[in-house]
């Protein structure tokens, strides 16, 4: 009577080496005690992205009033350059390029985490209020205390304020959205509300502030890599590095989270804890990024989605998302300084690229 399947009928012969008509399994790789699944395409895409990011990074360093050829840039970076180049690159240009690289990486990875956790491509730090919260607090510092606080603490004070603002807003959204667990839609709706609130506060601060402070705040609010100092870059670098290591360590239990909370729990993931730690890392990464370059829009939203499509991967791949973010940010900055009219901040360019992409995502979602 059973027409369907009888166990054993299709079961493979035990311990036999050749299994001709078996399903092809993802091949495994072993490096010492470490073993993982070999994904040739994703690895290839990641390597190409890394190479492209490095190329644009070097190009970006070469471009300026004193142009330096690509080969000389590379030589200088590896300590083989001439003295003139070394001064221009190490003291003047490298901080800007490094800031772009680090901020792009941080925002890309942050977006990949939030989108994975919420299982929704709209859940990026831009939309969850982290960026606007950082902006509001930074503008608060600039406008209310005016020259005094800014003069005392310098740009590092601004970065610290942005960091605290981003972290605070991120936590606020998380706790408001938490109701016996995190639901993606609820998280996004609350994120949008809080973003609107933070933007209203920012606007209010700007309208009631001294005009010189407003100019200062505006430049920061668009997102820019201008005038980066080694101090800021160093803070962003160490912050991002520590957070990326933390993410790498908790990324393994995170793997089944894409299948939903119940399935993940069934597979032995303590998803409440894992998700909390990862979201905290994502919020901090975004806040570090924003504190170093201002609320650069859309990088965290777009990078993971591009990485997914390039890597042909069903969920945002962490490393590739970070690399796309870096590529997008340095590339936009390079574009802003070369092709486009002078003085355009990088945030404008990422918005011009990111805006249409978001529309594209929404239209595609509607078509389903």
């Amino acid at each position, binding site marked *: 009577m059973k027409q369907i399947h009888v166990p054993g009928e299709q079961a493979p012969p035990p311990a036999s080496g050749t*299994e001709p008509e078996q*399903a092809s399994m993802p091949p495994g790789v072993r490096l010492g005690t470490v073993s993982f699944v070999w994904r040739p395409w994703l690895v290839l895409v990641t390597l190409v992205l890394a190479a492209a990011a490095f190329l644009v990074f070097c190009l970006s360093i070469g471009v300026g009033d004193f142009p330096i050829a690509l080969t000389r840039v590379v030589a200088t970076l590896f300590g083989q350059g001439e003295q003139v180049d070394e001064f221009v690159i190490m003291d003047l240009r490298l901080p800007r390029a490094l800031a772009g690289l680090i901020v792009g990486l941080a925002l890309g990875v942050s977006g990949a985490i939030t989108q994975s956790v919420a299982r929704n491509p709209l859940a990026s730090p831009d939309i969850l209020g982290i960026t606007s919260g950082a902006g509001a607090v930074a503008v608060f510092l600039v406008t209310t205390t005016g020259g005094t606080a800014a003069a005392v603490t310098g740009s590092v004070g601004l970065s610290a304020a942005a960091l605290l603002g981003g972290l605070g807003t991120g936590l606020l959204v998380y706790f408001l959205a938490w109701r016996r667990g995190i639901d993606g839609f609820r998280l996004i709706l609350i994120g949008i509300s809080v973003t609107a609130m933070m933007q209203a506060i920012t606007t209010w601060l700007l309208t009631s502030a001294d005009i010189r402070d407003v100019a200062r705040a505006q430049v920061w609010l668009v997102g820019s890599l201008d005038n980066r100092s080694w101090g800021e870059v160093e803070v962003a670098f160490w912050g991002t590095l520590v957070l990326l290591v933390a993410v790498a360590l908790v990324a393994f239990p995170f793997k089944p989270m894409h299948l939903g909370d119940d399935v993940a729990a069934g597979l032995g993931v303590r998803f409440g804890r894992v998700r909390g730690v990862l979201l905290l890392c994502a919020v901090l990464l975004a806040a570090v990024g924003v504190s170093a370059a201002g609320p650069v829009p859309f990088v965290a939203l777009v990078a993971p989605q591009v990485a997914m499509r390039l890597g042909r991967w069903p969920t945002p791949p962490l490393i590739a998302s970070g690399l796309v973010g870096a590529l997008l940010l340095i590339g936009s900055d390079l574009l802003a300084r070369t092709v486009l009219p002078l003085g355009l901040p990088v945030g404008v360019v990422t918005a011009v690229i990111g805006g249409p992409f978001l529309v594209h995502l929404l239209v595609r979602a509607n078509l389903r």
Partner: protein
Amino acid sequence: MAAQFTAGTADVKDVARLAARGVTVGYGDRTVIDGLDVTIPPGVITTIIGPNGCGKSTLLRTLSRLLRPTGGTVVLDGEDIGRLRTRDVAKKLGLLPQAPVAPDGLTVADLVARGRHPHQSWLRQWSSDDADVVRRALAMTGVADLAERPVDSLSGGQRQRVWISMTLAQGTDLLLLDEPTTYLDLAHAIDVLDLVDDLHESGRTVVMVLHDLNLATRYSDHLVVMRAGAVLAQGHPRDVITAELLHEAFGLRARVVEDPVGDRPLIVPIGRAHVRPDA
């Protein structure tokens, strides 16, 4: 005393691998189940049935440790499941929640491979053992030739087979399935339940929640009938399913007749429309 204690534990182990003892559980302030006792017999298919909102799924979720009871304990192999590590539970008990969703583009092989997660670690993310188990799970559920396809491109019945395959790859001999036939047409529901029967034939203990009473009767060896968060009756379908019980549990007027093809009772609901006057 120690010997006595050990003997007691072994005893529990033999009788039941999974049991709820005086379990009280709810959501927030609302208590769904209050002081419930149930023992899952080993090696057979147990199905929990009952009217909507009676706490069937809540019970299954509690048994699988997705929900923590506010009172009482769930015992898995003689140990309080609440004291076990999540990972250790996942090595003993496979769970398929209601209507799971895979991300778009995830392939069948990758989804089923995810079932190996409790056996993997940061350093050891994939081994030849894993590959063997996944291959067997795919073959057993008849989805081996779909391995490369994205899960979202499959039909509902195939998709459900794939999810069951993932649960199998977990390598547990205790399977908890929450409404595995939801959204499936009757032919696909039968197909999935035949598969569940295969799994039980190969020695696994299965606990399911089902809505369809006749399917539950046909495919289960042990029925747990619930009403309002309590167990109303339990036992073999032949002993449990009576017109009186159906009325008591569901408020359903029905005739219980001999199944023309099976060896279990068949439930014929009466209702109001198109019923002969002599019914």
